[in-house]
Every structure is written in C-alpha cells, then in structure tokens.
C-alpha cells in the first residue's frame, strides 16, 4: 500500500470510519506506523470529522448547507447591481459591437473595441487535468478591455483535428449553465486547442470548460471536462 493508493481510495477517512476490510486496515496501520506524515493526515481527517460534529451539535451545520441568506444575498445583489449600472456606462463608452455579449472566441480578433481594434491579450493559461486538485486551473482575468488566451488540452485526439469548446458557469446547486460555445477550432502542433475569453461580463466563481471533437470528427462524442476558478476585476454580470 503506497501513498497514491491511500489517497486514491480515501483510506484515511475510511479507516477512521472503521470501513476497511481487515487486510487493508492492517496494511494501512503498518504504513502509518512507519510514516509520521500519515499521522498528520489522520489528525487532519479527525479534526475535520470532529469539527463537523461540533457544527452539527451547535446547530450551525444546516445553515452552512443552505444557499446564502436572502438578506445577505439581497445586499450582495444590490451592490452588484450598482456596480453593473456603472459598468454598463463604461462598456458603452469604451467597447461597442458584437463582441460585447460574447465570452468565448476562436481568436483574439473576435473581441474588438469601439474603434474595431482587437482587444489586447493580457494573459495565457494552460488548462490540463490537475491531479488531485479541486480546480484544474485558477485564472485571474485582467480588467477589461482585454482578453485571456486559454490553451486547453483535450483528453481525446480528434481526427481531423477540429474541436468545440463550451463554457458554463456552475450554479450554487452545482448545475452547469451554458454561457457560450465555439466550434471549428484547430489544434496547435502541441495538441492544445486555443480559445479566447472575454471576461467583461463574467463574475468570479467556478466555471466548466468542455472540450470535444467537432461534428464529423472521430471524437465528436468524447468530451473532456475541466473545472476552472475565475477571479475577475470587472463588474459582475446581471
């Protein structure tokens, strides 16, 4: 039993729950007797369990399982609305044209300012499956007007190498809501598929990127899903 097996099979938590079959339990006990770092894992898991018990006993846990309280949410919405009103003015002043409502583009030229010039590319991020982490990537979007380049590596190669990328926001209950998609994307030599993000209408939060082969390719039904965290410096969307 090695550390990867312990992590992949959630051995620490299952051990504390007394859910391991005897051979697996004995193997794990041999491991942590020789590895003080595993004792730290046990202490961390035990603290998590005890903390949850305390929150439950104090009557706080149910509240934490609920969406944000209406009053707090109203305040947040009011603040967001004020920012949006100001932002809309700025958007109309500085940015105009079809790009204003789009979030994804096949090239940076998809987003232009009021003079018709492409918005500058303020950053590039590589999107890969991050082993073990909650998010595959964390992206700091620049203040508008600017775009961000994403280089996404699909799990399945399409033949011919044309791809489609869809962007969704993740709601409080975990459901994805499609914000936009773009197809006919050609993979670069390194296998990555490039797409450009215009964050001026995006809010900070968790988003989902789904890359699949475009229609009439060998990977038309093969989707690679990535969870990304986005922090914005611009206004929240309505």
């Amino acid at each position, binding site marked *: 039993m090695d550390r990867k097996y312990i992590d992949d099979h959630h051995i620490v938590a299952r051990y504390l729950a007394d859910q391991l079959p005897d051979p697996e339990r004995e193997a794990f006990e041999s491991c*942590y007797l*020789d590895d003080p770092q595993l*004792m730290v894992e046990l202490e*961390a898991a*035990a603290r998590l369990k005890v903390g949850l018990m305390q929150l439950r006993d104090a009557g706080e846990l149910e509240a934490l399982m609920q969406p944000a309280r209406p009053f707090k949410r109203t305040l947040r919405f009011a603040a967001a609305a004020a920012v949006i009103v100001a932002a809309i003015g700025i958007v109309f002043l500085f940015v105009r044209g079809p790009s204003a409502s789009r979030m994804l583009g096949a090239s940076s030229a998809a987003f232009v300012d009021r003079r018709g010039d492409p918005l500058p590319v303020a950053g590039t991020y590589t999107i890969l499956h991050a082993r073990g982490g909650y998010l595959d990537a964390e992206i700091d979007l620049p203040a508008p007007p600017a775009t961000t380049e994403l280089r996404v590596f699909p799990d399945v190669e399409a033949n011919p190498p044309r791809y489609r990328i869809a962007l969704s926001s993740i*709601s409080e209950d*975990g459901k994805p809501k499609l914000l936009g998609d773009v197809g006919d994307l050609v993979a670069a030599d390194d296998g990555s598929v490039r797409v450009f993000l215009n964050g001026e209408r995006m809010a900070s939060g*968790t988003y989902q990127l789904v890359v699949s082969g475009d229609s009439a390719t060998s990977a038309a039904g093969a989707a690679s899903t990535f969870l990304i965290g986005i922090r914005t410096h611009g206004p929240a969307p309505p």
Partner: protein
Amino acid sequence: MSTIDKRSAALLIGRQYPGLLLFFRRKVGDAELANDLVNEAVATALEHLNAGRISQPSLIAGYVFRVAMNHWRNHRRKLAARPERTTDPDTIESLAASKEDQDSEEPQLRSEVRGILEELPVRRDRELVRRFYLNEDDKSAICSDLGLAPLHFDKVIFRARKRMRERLEAKGFKKSDFFGLLLLAGFV
C-alpha cells in the same frame, strides 16, 4: 534511549494529536471510557517501546493510535475487554489535564471547519463533505445521489483535506514536532 512514563507520553500525545483524542471522545461517546481506551493504548505502546519493538520514540504516537483504534473496534464489536489491563490513575489524571487543552481547541476547530465549508463555492460540494466525513456514507452512494463524477468527488475531498492540513501546518504542526517535544522533555 531512556524510557518514557505514561503520564508524559499521554501529555505529549494530547498536545500533538488533540484532534484524534477528541475524535475518540466523540466516537466513544463517553469521555471516561475514551480516556481508558487511550490510557490502555499508551500503556501498550510504552511496553512496545521499552521492549525495543518501536525503533524511534517519534513513532510512538502511531502505535498509541493503532492500539486505541483496536480497542475502540473491540469495544464497538462488544468484545470483552482484557482484564489484565486496568486504568492507571496517574495517566487518567494526565489525560484530564490534556482535556483542558482539547476543550480550548474546540471553538478553533469549529471555526476551521466552518471556514473550509464556506470556501466550497457549490452547496452540493459541502453536502458531499458532510456526507463523507460526518455521515460516513460510501463514495459510490454519495456520487450516485448527488449526480457526481468520481473524479469530482475526489477533487472536493482532496481540497477539504488540503485546507485542513494547511491549517494544521499554519499552527506549526510539522512531522518532526513530536520528536522535538520528546527531545525537549528529555526522553531521548
């Protein structure tokens, strides 16, 4: 290598692993019985140490925990307690002293776990953590009920564990600390 007395070992373990001791108290549901379990575990681990079956004093906490888990398992399965092991009043006293430290841990622990839950942006992920760590539900059942991919489940659990470990480390918990405490106490 000099030997460690029960009281000192229990104190050191209480200082270093308050979460595990609190876990026992919660699981057993009877503080006195939990103290007995840990006390017996300390006694057994010290026997192993003094008999040379534990190569380094820094590993004694692992032995204590393993023996305590076995006692707890036996208790749960209603196996008869071994009559030759009796509670040592000195050790119970030392555990009672360390209990004060553990009690002082409680508000902080609650705050840490509250913070970890609040950092999860999706309510479903909080539910996942609650069901896995508190209700001790099976991963496949949780994934099925919440409509989650196993990979997503792993990511959420990984994140919660990582945050808790970071909080432990922020408090100065390092794997060498237990050995350091033994050094400071003059046991090695």
